[in-house]
């Protein structure tokens, strides 16, 4: 197995996630795209851990998983709050902070 096959797979997933963050309008779908990006990063970390034969990459991958879980919890809490106040979660309609 090449190192690059894992890294390029992660790059493809990352790019798809970036497209999702830019293109999607529904806040829940944007959060899902962020999950794709975080997974791509985790794949990189584990691939490099195997390449270097060290456990550091695994440790960081576990930390990333925990932070992602926290992020989804808070993110969906925010989305629910916005939905309760505005009856919509379309991101382009939330323009109160526009200068």
């Amino acid at each position, binding site marked *: *197995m090449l*190192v690059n096959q894992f890294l390029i797979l992660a790059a493809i997933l990352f790019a798809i*996630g970036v497209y999702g963050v830019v293109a*999607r309008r529904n806040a*829940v779908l944007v959060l899902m795209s962020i999950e794709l990006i975080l997974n791509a990063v985790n794949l990189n970390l584990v691939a490099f851990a195997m390449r270097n034969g060290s456990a550091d990459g695994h440790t960081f991958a*576990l930390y990333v998983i925990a932070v992602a879980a*926290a992020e*989804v919890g808070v993110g*969906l809490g925010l989305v629910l709050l916005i939905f309760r106040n505005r009856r919509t979660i379309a991101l382009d309609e939330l323009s109160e902070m526009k200068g």
Partner: protein
Amino acid sequence: MVAQNIGFGIIALMMVVGALRVVTTTNVVHAALWLVVVLSGGAAQYVLLGAEFIAITQVLVYVGAVMVLFLFGIMLTRTRIGREGGLNNPHWKWGIPVALLTLAATVLTLVSSFGGEKLPEDAAPISTQAVSDQIFGPYLLPFWALSFVLLAAVIGAIVLARKD
């Protein structure tokens, strides 16, 4: 080695197709279910890379817990389940060049840096014990910080979602 490469190819194809469906489907629930495919494929890749503990954590945390959160989020923020329009921005096409540029830059860098470098074939798998030695040894401070992040997230989510 050949069998591993075939397995990698199948799982990678599944993950890419799933990820594309997540960002293109017009049904939010289907997006969540395709995300399950991608995350499970990620767990399989971790097994291929000799990281069993990460794979199991991925299944427990992502496929188990985060997915339930997403489905609850979808359930609570919409009035009907099914196809719906308006899931994309009016300017969603700008996302395609952005993603392609990101991909091109990353792949060019990777190919020039790691060309045909192979993963070590006879490497001993990294044991869970080694990972825990790392977490409770040199990386103890980040672990504490992470505990506070999770505590803050729990309290923050309760405060945000509470009816008052």
